[in-house]
């Protein structure tokens, strides 16, 4: 079938000859519908119409829009909440309820300058770099299943896109997994603890847990589901600024350098958060510790918002435009600057993270955010 397509493609510009011509003719002769379809393609206007309607950029928007509706209709979308945005007109509201709006055949408004390359900025995907104890690095971007390394009796394997450590090692050997911007990955530590790493993050850990505690270091953002082991408490060192002691628990840590605070949010279990020179704080499920030079506890954290990334969504509730842009920077690997004062726009609601940057920006444009996109540089206009 691929071969037929390549023949048709070629035939659109240069007449086929010899065997290729015979093969195409044979295929066309097999059915009158095929012949009619092929004739249609010869019509320049019709071909042009096809190219317009099925352009890659429009397809991506269509694909996500429909899928979002499907997820909602099947109940697979876990949140029954309808997507809502605070700044909207009635018409925009209807569009947004459908997901991403009907951008399929619209012409862009003259205000927004859309660089041709915008269509190519895809959302983040699975990928990471694993640094072994000897310093060698392995890219996990396109690996679904593979044996990565054998170090001191412990095997690191990628199984269905998750890095899993197996075996009983004796030597204390450290690995680091890091995600660049535009990537995310999962790993299972030697004790069975599962870790989800967001973009621009890293985790440093031993290939085997020996001794009387399990200790890892992280930067960026990670969500943990820690296996129970009262004899070996789990400790997380966060970017060298705070520490968390954990007993069999589910929690999320967000520690990006360019954000205002380190946020540790507990979903289940128990976590103690410590910084040098202050009393430790023990969190209850649903609470969030915000760490700056002190620790502030939020009693009823919006855990759905905190967990949105791990579940494949953006949740912009109550975030400033700058905070939103920083998330986009990490997920799409772009750089955002502001021309003039930062627009004072507050948004709420959720959106799938799987949409291209183009699709998401078009949505923001509807809400009054003006921008200019050149390659990977996004400039927000006043």
């Amino acid at each position: 079938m691929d071969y037929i397509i390549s023949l048709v493609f070629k035939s659109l510009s240069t007449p086929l000859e010899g065997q290729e011509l015979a093969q195409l003719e044979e295929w066309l002769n097999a059915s009158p519908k095929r012949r009619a379809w092929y004739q249609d393609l010869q019509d320049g206007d019709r071909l042009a119409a096809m190219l317009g309607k099925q352009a890659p950029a429009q397809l991506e928007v269509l694909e996500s829009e429909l899928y979002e509706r499907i997820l909602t209709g099947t109940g697979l979308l876990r949140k029954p909440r309808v997507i809502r945005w605070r700044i909207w007109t009635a018409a925009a509201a209807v569009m947004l309820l459908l997901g991403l709006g009907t951008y399929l055949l619209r012409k862009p408004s003259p205000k927004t300058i859309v660089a041709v390359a915008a269509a190519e900025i895809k959302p983040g995907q699975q990928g990471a770099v694993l640094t072994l104890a000897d310093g060698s690095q392995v890219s996990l971007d396109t690996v679904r299943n593979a044996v990565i390394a054998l170090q001191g009796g412990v095997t690191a394997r990628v199984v269905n896109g998750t890095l899993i450590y197996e075996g009983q090692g004796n030597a204390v050997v450290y690995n680091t997994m890091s995600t660049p911007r535009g990537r995310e990955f999962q790993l299972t530590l030697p004790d069975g603890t599962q870790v989800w790493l967001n973009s621009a993050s890293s985790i440093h850990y031993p290939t085997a847990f020996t001794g009387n505690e399990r200790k890892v270091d992280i930067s960026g953002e990670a969500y943990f589901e820690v296996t129970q082991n009262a004899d070996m408490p789990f400790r997380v060192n966060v970017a060298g600024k705070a520490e968390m002691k954990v007993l069999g628990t589910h929690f999320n840590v967000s520690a990006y350098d360019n954000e205002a605070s380190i946020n540790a949010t507990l979903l289940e279990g128990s976590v103690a958060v410590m910084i040098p020179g202050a009393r430790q704080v023990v969190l209850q499920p649903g609470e969030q510790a915000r760490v700056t030079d002190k620790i502030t506890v939020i009693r009823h954290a919006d855990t759905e918002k905190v967990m949105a990334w791990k579940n494949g969504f953006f949740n912009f509730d109550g975030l400033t435009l700058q905070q939103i842009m920083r998330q986009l920077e990490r997920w799409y690997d772009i750089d955002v600057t502001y021309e003039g004062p930062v627009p004072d726009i507050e948004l709420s609601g959720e959106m799938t993270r799987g949409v291209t940057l183009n699709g998401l920006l078009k949505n923001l444009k509807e809400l009054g955010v003006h921008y200019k996109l050149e390659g990977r540089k996004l400039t927000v206009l006043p």
Partner: protein
Amino acid sequence: MTDNELTYHDDAQLVQLFRTGSEEAFSIIYKRLYQRLYFFALRFVPEMDAKDMVAEAFISLWQKREDFTEFPAIQHFLFILIRNRCLNLLKHELMKTEKQAEILQQLTLTDEEDLDLQHLQAELVKLIYAEVERLPQKMRAIFLLSFQEGLKPAAIAEQLQLSVQTVRNQKVTALRLLREALGNRAPLLLLLMLVTEKFFSDL
């Protein structure tokens, strides 16, 4: 053909995963089929209805997932569902214009082969856009702005900050490149000329 990275060895396994409730398998099936189904429906009904039908068809598919053991059966199910919805919609239109009657007639003559051809067309369009990526930058920009963004020549000239004269010159360059390219058998330039003949002449 690009596919997602779920590990499965063949369609049988994909369908098996799907029927036991794997959302990831469902999303792969969706990504493979939605385009041909949507553009098939679009031939007969307006955009909003086409989108409704496709979304609802996949929702039904999910609800009946346990009924399927093979991939062709899935495509068949979706196709029949959508085709019937199109038929119903067209039959119940109160004001039947001649055009609508003609469309209805065409629809009654369709079968799954139309869906397969729709898929072939989608693949062809992908190939064309892939070639577009290889064009020199200005030509690529003109092509994409014309087709993907639907801009008229004057608007393109403004956006790319080219004078209309430059855009005309691009035509001359394109023609020259074309003549050279014919020697190298670069298919797309000819195609570009074919479909943008009208566009350039509108300047």
